[in-house]
């Protein structure tokens, strides 16, 4: 390998970068400068970052280098990554993609952020996202749409679209994301990267700006399942500050990565291969399933009879919870306040009317309606009952199979503007991912090929707390394929 190729750090994944750092072949400051330069050179074409935190990044990199020298470094010390702008970062603007928080400098760190900081991970900046994580295309951001690095006329998916685009273009080796209805998996699929949403309660939500509290879950977005395992090792775990975080030991997520797949039972829900699925996407997914068969897995047809209801159920649960969560934005203590309010009511209504974008207002109103007097039973209660039935479907399926596979999204990345006037068609982009959030299960998306140069994701869903198995199932596939290594031409 020539000197120049050695220095192509963006062509290396976290595992490789970590090895270089540990061996002293590169310093964290060098790596950090390298990726900051890439962001500077390329992000104007993508808009994947809202804030680039150069000064803090270089200071953290120097500290990491000291730790690497004095022997106190961990496996991720010195590696630079990006954070979705939904995670509170002390002293750094945390906008959540909204005008409402454009001026919000967080006074504290989210637990995910502080855990990664303690592990020596360097933050490059904060990535763009759909406003308050409400969207599937990253077009609802106050800071403008993010472009897909594989085709800049198209969306990167959402809501963690900035994180997905930044990793796909290798402007950051990895990033954090959050997933309420598919917001890690769908953009990972559309940008050709690997992402995992763990079991609900596995990662602390403290300092992660709340959208729908019973569904929101953070997770890593990276170039491979192995990279995701390294990040999850740091991100997962109990936190007293999140009342829904589960007190359960965190395994070493890399420990199962060598396990052969012979005998693995893969469930294929017939509902995920029916009407609405693009024929070319299906072909790619079937190709990935053939690969699993070669690896010794068994494919079993299953049914998830209530999964067709997951989109309607989600559009009650998520708006209802968001209408409650977003009531805190009132212009009193932080964030945006309208100019010259005449009285308190005028201040509330104009602050919120001007501070929130159209999609956020739509969802707040749907939630307000569903929770209003006389409608609670018909909407929220009914949706929680159906959620129970959707979860039961999965429970029964996991008696017969180890993991469930299918497409992550029914189509590849669509054109910017194509669905922005039609909320319902946008919502259907998450038709295969939403049920997993409603049931609280872990799920991931893995690059499985291309249709007309646009990436396709394979969704793998596992049983509760079986992230280790899920990551290994993805890892074995990645040992035998190289879809996850593909980099878009303009970012080579």
């Amino acid at each position, binding site marked *: 390998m020539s000197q120049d190729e050695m220095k192509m750090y963006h062509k290396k994944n976290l595992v490789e970068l970590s090895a270089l750092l540990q061996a002293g072949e590169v310093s964290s400051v060098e790596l950090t400068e390298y990726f900051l330069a890439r962001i500077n050179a390329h992000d104007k074409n993508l808009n994947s970052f809202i804030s680039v935190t150069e000064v803090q990044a270089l200071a953290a990199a120097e500290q990491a280098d000291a730790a690497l020298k004095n022997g106190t470094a961990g496996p991720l010390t010195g590696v630079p990554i990006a954070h979705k702008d939904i995670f509170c970062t002390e002293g750094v603007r945390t906008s959540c993609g909204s005008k409402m928080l454009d001026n919000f400098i967080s006074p504290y760190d989210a637990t995910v952020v502080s855990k990664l900081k303690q592990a020596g991970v360097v933050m490059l900046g904060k990535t763009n996202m759909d406003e308050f994580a409400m969207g599937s295309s990253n077009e609802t951001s106050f800071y403008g749409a993010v472009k897909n690095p594989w085709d800049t006329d198209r969306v990167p998916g959402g809501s963690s679209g900035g994180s997905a685009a930044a990793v796909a273009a290798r402007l950051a080796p990895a990033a954090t994301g959050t997933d309420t209805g598919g917001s890690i998996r769908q953009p990972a699929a559309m940008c050709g990267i690997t992402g995992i949403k763990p079991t609900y309660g596995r990662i602390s939500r403290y300092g992660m700006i709340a959208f729908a509290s019973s569904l929101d879950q953070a997770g890593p977005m990276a170039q491979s399942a192995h990279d995701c395992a390294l990040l999850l090792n740091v991100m997962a775990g109990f936190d007293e500050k999140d009342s829904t975080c589960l007190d359960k030991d965190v395994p070493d997520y890399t420990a199962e990565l060598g396990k052969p797949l012979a005998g693995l039972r893969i469930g294929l829900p017939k509902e995920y291969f029916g009407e609405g699925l693009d024929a070319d996407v299906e072909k790619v997914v079937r190709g990935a399933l053939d690969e699993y068969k070669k690896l010794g897995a068994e494919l079993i047809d299953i049914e998830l009879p209530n999964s067709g*209801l997951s989109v309607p159920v989600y559009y009650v649960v998520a708006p209802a919870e968001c209408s409650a969560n977003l009531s805190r934005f009132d212009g009193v203590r932080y964030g945006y306040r309208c100019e010259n309010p005449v009285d*308190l009511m005028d201040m509330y209504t104009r602050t919120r009317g001007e501070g929130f974008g159209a999609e956020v207002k739509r969802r707040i109103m749907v939630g307000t309606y569903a929770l209003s007097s006389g409608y609670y039973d018909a909407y929220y209660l009914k949706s929680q009952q159906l959620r129970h039935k959707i979860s039961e479907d999965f429970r029964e399926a996991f008696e017969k199979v180890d993991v469930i596979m299918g497409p992550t999204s029914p189509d590849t990345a669509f054109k910017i503007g194509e669905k922005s006037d039609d909320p319902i068609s946008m919502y259907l982009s998450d038709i295969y991912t939403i049920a997993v959030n409603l049931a609280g299960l872990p799920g991931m998306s893995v690059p499985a090929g291309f249709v007309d140069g646009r990436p396709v994701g394979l969704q793998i869903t596992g049983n509760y707390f079986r992230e280790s198995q899920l990551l290994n199932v993805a890892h074995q596939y990645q040992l035998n394929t190289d879809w996850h290594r593909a980099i878009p031409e303009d970012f080579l």
Partner: protein
Amino acid sequence: MSLDVDEVKKIAYLARLKIEEADIPGYVSNLSDILDLVAQMNAVDTKGVTPMSHPLDAVQRLREDVVTEGNQRELFQAIAPKTEDGLYLVPQVIE
């Protein structure tokens, strides 16, 4: 399920959202479409089904009622739109 202009205005008021008059018809149509989508739930009988409160049937964790956070008023008020003498200022409420 279709909503009318007055219903949308009422919902906006309950949600404390000022919606420009010109934008109301758009919301009427979008919200009605979403409620139509949601109405698909009615196809399934859920009589006797327990509503799900947590995917893993976890119960609310309790803690001792003690102070765990120190006073950081200055830090928090540094990002407030308007404060005076350590208090948050809003438009006058009482004449």
